[in-house]
């Protein structure tokens, strides 16, 4: 098992090679987790595969950076859940160092000094609920079961490419028939719950079960992650369901940190891709996909270097795939229109900290375990909804919602002994600010997030050794994600399944022969899942037969 970072091995290995003169069967544009997954599958199928990554390291939005000696920051994406088991097994990821560290807890300060703390023992969780509300104790069991039933019903849709509703060949008709058959097999109560989640608000769904404001607040929080919706907005139910889909280690809705952060995970993917024979070229920003007579012939880098291949796979989002890498005039108008209408509207930011020691939550002075998983700072539905309000009018939350994680509690490699790193996902931070810009607001915004942490963890500010503020503009600049949207296209019903990334183009091909898409902007994308890339490569290999 090699532990040398791929940013180094890729460069060293390729220094002596003139990759541009070599023959490639496939070129992957973008070395994020989907690009690397696609490269691994393509190489595994025997295709000579080249990954072109714009930055000096692979990983895209799933990177870990040592911003301070010994302190590893998960700059952007910070947790694993939706990664599909087939990818772990088919790409031999365990051999290359795959090590998910399951979160032992989920911690929710209730805003009044008290807290909710959940773990793997259901009975103990019920007691935790009962401490706040006797009414909500059995509601908690039914809520989880009802959501799990919906997850089970929806899961097969995640494991297959969406059928082409408008396709006319027999395979398309068979796919549509399969979908109808599957839907008809779903129990009517489960189907009704599914539609309530897919179209309604997280608050409406959750409040049908829970009466206690903090218990409801805990449960809606996954309904707003990464999306310009509040918990009371229709559509937040869909975002909540998506996050409940996470199946890691066999437990629905459970999350893990990867050893070394999500950058540790993309290093594993890169090593797997290389082991299958893929080549990774860093600092290679692609300017354009080259085409002739409606076919792709390769790519050109910004420095003019050209690489030829009959297959080019874009791991970038739809905006870049269809309007920047290729000339939109070569594409049908309805596709280009749909791509231009796609909502990105990033509202998420990160504020990451290096800490001198663990923070203190006064009600749990001697405990560490409550810091082992997600720390959910958004006590009630109203708190999160009010945090959302500001973003509607082009400003960031005065008291933001924060999903924090002190990864060094379960992964001691992330910080020097006794020290810690804390990743804070902070919402809402709209990509476009009205009357100012992010460069001017960066530190004030960081102060705002830190003030919220200070409320819950008195003395927090004294522990901070270093702070990194990652604005939506930073996300866009460094990862290429349009408007800093972490899902490469918002989770809105008109942007999912048949419509992801555009009606009629949800099956990984594009109107240009040999040009494919495999990023998180394609089904079932968003989150560190790898499925878009796996399904895209299935499509590519089918087309080559």
């Amino acid at each position: 098992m090699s532990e040398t970072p791929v940013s180094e091995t890729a460069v060293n290995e390729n220094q002596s090679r003139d990759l541009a003169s070599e023959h490639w069967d496939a070129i992957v544009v973008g070395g994020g987790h989907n690009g690397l997954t696609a490269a691994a599958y393509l190489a595994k199928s025997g295709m000579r595969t080249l990954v072109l990554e714009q930055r000096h390291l692979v990983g895209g939005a799933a990177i870990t950076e040592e911003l301070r000696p010994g302190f590893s920051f998960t700059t952007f994406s910070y947790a694993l859940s939706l990664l599909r088991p087939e990818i772990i097994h088919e790409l031999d990821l365990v051999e290359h160092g795959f090590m998910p560290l399951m979160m032992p807890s989920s911690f929710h300060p209730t805003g009044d000094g008290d807290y909710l703390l959940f773990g793997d023992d259901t009975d103990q969780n019920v007691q935790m609920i009962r401490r706040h509300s006797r009414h909500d104790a059995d509601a908690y069991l039914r809520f989880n079961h009802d959501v799990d039933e919906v997850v089970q019903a929806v899961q097969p849709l995640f494991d297959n490419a969406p059928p082409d509703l408008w396709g006319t060949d027999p395979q398309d008709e068979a796919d549509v028939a399969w979908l109808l058959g599957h839907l008809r097999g779903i129990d009517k109560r489960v189907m009704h719950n599914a539609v309530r989640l897919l179209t309604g608000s997280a608050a409406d769904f959750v409040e049908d079960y829970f009466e206690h404001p903090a218990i409801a607040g805990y449960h809606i929080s996954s309904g707003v992650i990464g999306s310009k919706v509040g918990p009371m907005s229709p559509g937040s139910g869909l975002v909540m369901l998506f996050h409940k889909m996470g199946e890691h280690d066999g437990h629905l809705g459970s999350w893990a940190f990867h050893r070394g952060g999500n950058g540790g995970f993309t290093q594993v993917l890169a090593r797997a891709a290389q082991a299958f024979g893929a080549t990774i070229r860093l600092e290679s920003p692609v300017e354009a996909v080259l085409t002739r007579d409606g076919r792709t012939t390769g790519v050109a880098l910004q420095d003019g270097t050209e690489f030829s291949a009959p297959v080019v796979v874009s791991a970038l989002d739809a905006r870049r795939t269809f309007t920047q890498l290729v000339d939109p005039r070569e594409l049908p108008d309805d596709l280009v229109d749909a791509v231009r209408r796609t909502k990105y509207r990033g509202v998420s930011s990160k504020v990451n900290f290096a800490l001198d020691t663990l923070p203190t939550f006064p009600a749990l002075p001697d405990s560490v375990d409550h810091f082992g998983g997600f720390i959910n700072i958004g006590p009630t539905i109203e708190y999160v909804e009010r945090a959302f309000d500001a973003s509607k009018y082009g400003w960031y939350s005065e008291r933001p919602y924060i999903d924090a994680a002190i990864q060094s509690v379960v992964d001691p490699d992330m910080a020097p002994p006794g020290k810690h790193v804390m990743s804070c996902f902070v919402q809402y931070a709209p990509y476009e600010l009205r009357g100012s810009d992010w460069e001017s607001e960066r530190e004030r915004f960081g102060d705002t997030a830190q003030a919220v942490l200070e409320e819950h963890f008195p003395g927090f500010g004294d522990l901070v050794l270093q702070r990194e503020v990652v604005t939506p503009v930073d996300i866009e600049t460094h990862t290429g994600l349009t408007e800093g949207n972490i899902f490469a296209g918002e989770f809105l019903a008109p942007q999912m399944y048949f419509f992801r990334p555009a009606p009629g183009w949800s099956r990984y091909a594009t109107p240009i022969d040999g040009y494919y898409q495999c990023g998180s902007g394609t089904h079932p994308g968003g989150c560190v899942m790898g499925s878009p890339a796996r399904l895209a490569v299935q499509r590519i290999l089918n087309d080559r037969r």
Partner: protein
Amino acid sequence: MVATTPFHDRLSELNDQRLYTHWQGHLSALRYTHAPKHEYFAVRHGVGVFDTSPLYKYRITGPDAERFLSGVLVRDVSDLREGRAAYTLWCDDRGFVMEDGVLFRHGAEDLVLTSARPALAWLTAHRGPLKVGLEDETDAYGILAVQGPRSVRVLGALTAAADHLRRFDLAPTTIAGAEVTVSRTGFTGDLGYELTVPRRNCLDVLDAILEAGRDHQLRPFGEEALDMLRIEAGLPLVDVEWTDSTLAWSDEQRVTPTELGMGWMLRGVREGRRFVGSDAIRRELETGSSRWATTGIVVDWRAWDRLHRDAGLLPTKDEHPLGWESWLRDDSGEQVGYATSVMYSPVLQRHIGIARVRPRLAEPGTGLHLETTVLHRTATVACQTVPLPHFAPQRRSAMP
């Protein structure tokens, strides 16, 4: 009345579950927190401590100590040098396995054998006229296992002795003012050490370890996590993988070293090396009469998911090892083996097991069917044989 180990007073303070089992008459923690999985991850990626004190400990001394042990243990101990330890079995005179343990050689005439079960009468009965001292020191020492990739750093803060130990080396050292033995041994299949500590010093040594481990997120781990770790490591457990031959009712419950997957321990037996049971074992080797072979199995995760989804269930993926045997069948449905341990491995993200199959089926990659139940009905799910261990990180045997 149930006893407690010399580490118990402190470890019980760290146990927020109060779930114990009885191990050799001692309270032994099943888990310390709400789920053993997190204790398991501490060992696979950080460091954990396990109280293994209930093990029996027999000190064997005198000029004939080596000769005596050579005659009763399956492992050839004649080349076990001072400062080394060795895992071994012992058998009855029909060549069936009784127990297992680790033999620590402190000096030419000073050895300690650990055992999960009492063995003094049996050892004494085989002493004959040899000049051997045999003493039960079980209650005089506690044993603390410090396991996981960070174990060497935690111990390194307290003693320089651990840094240089190769796997199965041992050395005397001082921790917290106590004379202890540190050995690079354990039951987790990971980098790890065990400290053998005089009873009166146990809490002092444990406190020093906890303090040194604080900044490395050290956790105590219980029997449930240990069971997960040892199955991944392919390490057999008495009363799960086999039954002590002297306590079994039927030969169906008994296994030979070869059948248990410990054929590697039989060096020199064909050439005439003798110990209790060696004649029968030699005949088994010469005639190829082994009934079983031990192998790993890996369940086809797709088949597992399909089986449950088709029944309208969420696929269960429970890291708690099954508490019962599962049958293995061939394509024709005939029973050709049985899985003794089955669990869902959090690192490998698939169901794995330790199984016994007919020797002709032990070739890695052999397709078999594991019997399970779904909605009150029996069903089978595809699996295949794989070599053990399931998980063997390089650090397990590399120099840290």
